[in-house]
């Protein structure tokens, strides 16, 4: 089973990297870009788990290791069952 996890800074936390990317896009003339938030992508392959077990483990992994819950949030999806 393949799972994709997205980790990014919480809305309440300033993202200077995202701001810098936004400024660069403005310089290139993409004035429509209002905001950019930068994050990380993890693609994890799991084996020997059924869907309900994966649904339990994936957020646990994200919360304990992949994201720092003090400053980051995460979302995830199952790509291939």
């Amino acid at each position, binding site marked *: 089973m393949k799972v994709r996890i997205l980790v990014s*800074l919480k809305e309440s936390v*300033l993202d*200077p*990297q995202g701001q*810098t990317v936004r400024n660069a896009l403005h310089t290139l003339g993409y004035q429509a870009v209002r905001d950019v938030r930068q994050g990380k992508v993890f693609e994890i392959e799991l084996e020997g788990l059924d869907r309900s077990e994966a649904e339990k483990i994936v957020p646990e992994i994200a919360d304990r*290791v*992949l994201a*720092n819950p*003090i*400053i980051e949030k995460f979302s995830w999806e199952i790509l291939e069952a």
Partner: protein
Amino acid sequence: MKFGVVVFPGSNCDYDTFHALQNVMGLETVFLWHKDHDLQGVDCVVLPGGFSYGDYLRSGAIARFSPIMTEVKKFAAAGGLVLGICNGFQILLEAGLLPGAMLRNKNLKFLCQHVYIRVENSRTAFSQAARKGQVLQIPIAHFDGNYYASPELLSELERNGQVVFRYCDEKGKLSEEANVNGSINSIAGLINRQGNVLGMMPHPERASEKILGSQDGKIIFQSMINYLEKKVGPGRKKAVRTTRPAISPLPPLIGTF
């Protein structure tokens, strides 16, 4: 009195810290290997600066799972003295031994420079040799030193006097300019509620000898010595040298990463 310096893969201030403790401060010092579960009976654990595990995932995020950290956590819970410098501070945050988190520096630059920090609380085991309000000149070298705490946590830290050092100018004045990495409330050093675990971004070991441009870092180590002397008795091997040192050779690192 015995000090231990933890060596993680990617630590690069381990030898500097060892040198400052052993040769400058005259303390019995040992290296603690990250794969070991043995703290070798030390009275103080120092987590040195560097880039443990290449800063993969987040600075300090992987080091917290090292076998030695299980022992450091037990040691800290039992009241043992733990100092985290730079990457060591980041590891303490990731390990949950100190509250809050680090963000990338506000200007997105790796900062390697001398800074001034003001002693906000001189009644801790790490700052008792200083005066409240004293300004220390100690260098920083980091990418992720922009300390972050939620508003609730921040007011709790301030109320409890847990902010030990703040970035300031030469005269001790706080300003946005002096707060080089953008840390919330200019926080440069933080202690836990129990008062036995301190994390700081500036490197006291890099400001422990005249030739390095500042000796203010010795105030941190001296504070810890004063504290431990009351707790475990005198530990000086010899008087702190004043002129040229007879440098003891540092032990080689043995082990595989």
